Structure formats: C-alpha cells, structure tokens
C-alpha cells in the first residue's frame, strides 16, 4: 500500500500504520514525498515493513516496536528515539541524537550520524557505517554502539554498561570511558549482530570501549573527576 505525504495528512498516515488490522495480509507500505516532516512512522507497534522514499524530519520511527522502517534519504534529530524493538534502516545520514534512549531493536545508519548518537541508550544496537559526532553514547546504559568510521570528541562520556565498538579513530574519550580488551565474548556478540543484519565485517577489526565504573557510584576519591 502506498501513501503520498503531499496528498494525505501525516496524522492520518501515522494513525493507519499504528492501528494495523492484524487479520490483514497487507504488511508492506510505502511513503512518498516525506519532505522533512517530523514524526513520520512514530509509534508503530506491529510487524510491518515501511519504506520511506526521501528525507525525513525529527523523531522518524520513534518509539518503534516490531516494525521495520527503511528511509531512503537522510533523517533529522532523534531517529528511532526510544525504540523498543524492530529495525530501522537509514540509507543516508542521520542528524543528532540518533537512537536516543532506545531500549531494543536495531538502528542501522549507512551514512554518518552527528552529535550525541545513542545518548542514554538502554539496550538498542546502533550500527553507524560512517562516523559519529561528539558526545556519542553519552550516559549510555545498555546495548551496543558500533561505528565503522571515526568518533568525534568525548565518546562515551559518563557511560554505564553499554558497549562501544569503533573501527576508525576516536578523537577523544569522555569522562569514565576507557578502551577495553576485545575479548572472545565481545567478538562473538559482534559477530552475531553482523550475521543477523547481513553485514560482512570482521569483528576483530574493531576496538572496544566501555565504562571504567569510577563515576556511577559516588566515591569521594573520585571527586576531582566530576
């Protein structure tokens, strides 16, 4: 089924996609002329497949559950923010805070993601095939941020238990983020993510970063680092 955002209201399209008739076999949808509209495909909760042809605005596919959303274009701030499950594929670049607070599912960005990618992520896998901007994985709690390119300043600042994998260069690490050994467990985890997403990359080419665990319980000895 095709929708044209130049002819139909965004709220009507979103309402339709958020309330899929579960008995129906129609599971594939296309959205044309997104023209940078905000909140396209926000709040989907069924196992459907949506393709968006063009560039989107803020919060595209936010709060996604189960659905697979593919954007053939760039996305604005907060793509797949607070995603619970499902897959979001971005064929272009992503703006700030991609995958912010995401609890689960996979967000795959073919281009670059800018500042604060994966901020406060809580279990999502974010794969960025390009580079990420500054303060990425800020206060990230759980999940994996996998970067094929480079990372700008303060990667993983105040990170909790999320894992960061970077193939390229890291400009600088944020407070309490350190390089960790790329152990067998991490290699296997990464291999599984790549396999599930049909990505041909060798996990051994990545460096791993995570929390030094000195900041998230207050210790007087660390006062200088706050």
């Amino acid at each position, binding site marked *: 089924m095709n929708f044209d955002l130049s002819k139909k209201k965004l709220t009507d399209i979103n309402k339709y996609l958020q309330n899929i008739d579960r008995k129906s076999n129609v599971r594939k949808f296309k959205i044309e002329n997104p*023209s*940078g*509209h*905000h909140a396209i495909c926000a709040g989907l909760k069924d196992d459907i497949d949506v393709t968006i042809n*063009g*560039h*989107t*605005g*803020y919060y595209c596919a936010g709060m996604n559950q189960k659905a697979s959303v593919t954007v053939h*274009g*760039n996305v*604005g*701030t907060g793509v797949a923010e607070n995603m619970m499950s499902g897959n979001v594929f971005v064929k*272009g*670049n992503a*703006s*700030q805070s991609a995958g912010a607070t995401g609890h689960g599912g996979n967000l795959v960005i073919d281009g*670059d993601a*800018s*500042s604060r990618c994966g901020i406060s992520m809580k279990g999502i896998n974010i794969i960025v095939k390009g580079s990420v*901007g*500054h303060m990425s994985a800020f206060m990230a709690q759980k999940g994996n941020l996998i970067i094929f390119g480079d990372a*700008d300043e303060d990667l993983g600042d105040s990170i909790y238990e999320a894992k960061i994998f970077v193939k390229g260069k890291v400009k600088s690490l944020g407070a309490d983020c350190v390089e960790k050994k790329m152990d067998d467990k991490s290699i296997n985890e990464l291999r599984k993510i790549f396999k599930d997403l049909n990505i041909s990359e060798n996990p051994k080419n990545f460096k791993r970063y995570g929390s030094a665990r000195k900041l998230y319980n207050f210790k007087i000895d660390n006062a200088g680092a706050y």
Partner: protein
Amino acid sequence: MCGIVGIYLKTKKYEKSLGKFLSGMLDNMATRGPDSAGFAIYTKENKNNFKYSICLNNFSEQDFKKKISKYFKKIKIIKYSDHVIMETKDEPKEVIKVINEKIKEVSIVGYGKSINIFKQTGNPKDVVKKFKLSSFSGTHGIGHTRMATESAITTEGSHPYSTAEDECLVHNGSLSNHNNVRRDLIKKGQEFKSENDTEVAAGYISNKISEGNNLKNTLASSLKNLDGFYTFIAGTKDGFALLRDEVACKPAVVAETKDYVAVASEFQAMAHLPNVNSAKIFEPKPGVVYNW
C-alpha cells in the same frame, strides 16, 4: 526556538526565483517562530547609489517623503507595506544622522549597495506576503522566524540585524554574555537600538570586520568571545557564512547542489527547492565556520 534560513546562488540560473525560494523557506519555518519574521535579500549591487531599508512604523509614506526631501534632493522611494527602500547617492553617515535626529518616527533597519531588509511582527506567512518577497530576484538571502525569548515581540526585536553596510545576521539560540560584550562595543563606538542579544552579535561581527578581519576569521573568533548557544548565518555583499557553537544544541542542515547552497534549521524548510532530493545534504559540524 526560532527558525533560520539562507540561500546562496552559485550560478545565475535561479536569480529570478530567489525571492520565491526564500519565501517558501520562511513559510516552512513558521512553526519554529510564529512571533515575527524578517529577511535580507541581496540584489544586484548599484555602485553609485546607497539603498536604505526603512521601517515607517506608523508614519505615512507621504509624510516621510515630505520630511526627507528637506534634506536630500535626489531620492527614489519604493514602498513595501510599512517599509520603504530609499535610493540615493547620499552617504550613510549623513543619511543615518538625519533620519535618527530629524525623522524619529521611522527606523533604519539596514543599508548598503546591495542589501534590502524587511522585518516585522506577525506570522512569517503573512510577513513574506506583505513585503512581496516572492517578487524579488537576487544573488543570496537570509531569513529568520522568531519565537521571542529574551526580549519583547517588536520590530526592533526581529531579525535580521544589520549593524554595518551590507552586513546582517540571523541567530537561533541565545547569548549569555551579551551585556558585557555590548558594553565593550559601545566603548568602541558601536551603536545599538535594542536590548536584543543578536544585535550584540551582529555588532561584534561588524566591529571585527571594520578592524580588517574577514567574515570567516570573525566568526571563528566569536567562538571565544560570544558565550551561549547559537547557530548564526551572517550575510555580506558577496555571500554568507554559517557557524554553530561547539555544543551544537541548535540545529542546522545544509543542502548543496551545483546551482545553490541552502541552509536551514530543518530540512523541511528546503524541501520545495529544485533538485533538493539529489543535493549533497549534511549537518554542519559544531564550532566550524562554513562560508560561501
């Protein structure tokens, strides 16, 4: 919040459509700033004449003409709603003095050999219509839709701010050290018309340029001297430049084709531009000056 937009034409192909493009960009940014709007449009430079963009406020065009004719003889005035563009050979120093001292009912919003500035309170969709922005042709233009935060909704509080010949600035964000910077600039002879933080940033840029710096270096120096959060688009006779502060709280997106460069707070501002879907689209990096 506020919305900012800018478009610079790299070729002559779309010069006649510039006003139409900029008008659409401002229309689409009305959601980010419904309180007031303004724009600067750079048209072909007239080497012999200066153009003064003047807001009449509640003064009538006839009364203004009558008063100004006492001081300057060869003038041409074109009215656009409550603004006029006045063309004359007379130098800015004289004209500004006369208007500020003798015709206090009106206010100069900008001047130069190429720039035309219009700004007014009201929804951006209505503001662009009343100034007939779509009818303008030109080489580049910048615009602003304002959601007022630190000063009142007035014409003086609207952007763009022009503090020197053919220069102007639009700003999304707010500055925290503008009172200090304003005091320093006043000591150096810069004059301000409002309490607005952006006017201080515009004055800062004009002051640096008057000291011989180029626009790129001037903006780079503002990273050190202007504290706060901002995305700036600064226009000059030849082009414009873009800068985001190093934290990059305020958004910006750039679309570049072989014919134009467009900058806006959100992509939807430029969704109507020709071939934009095949443009090179990127988010400008924090703390980096981009200029065209």
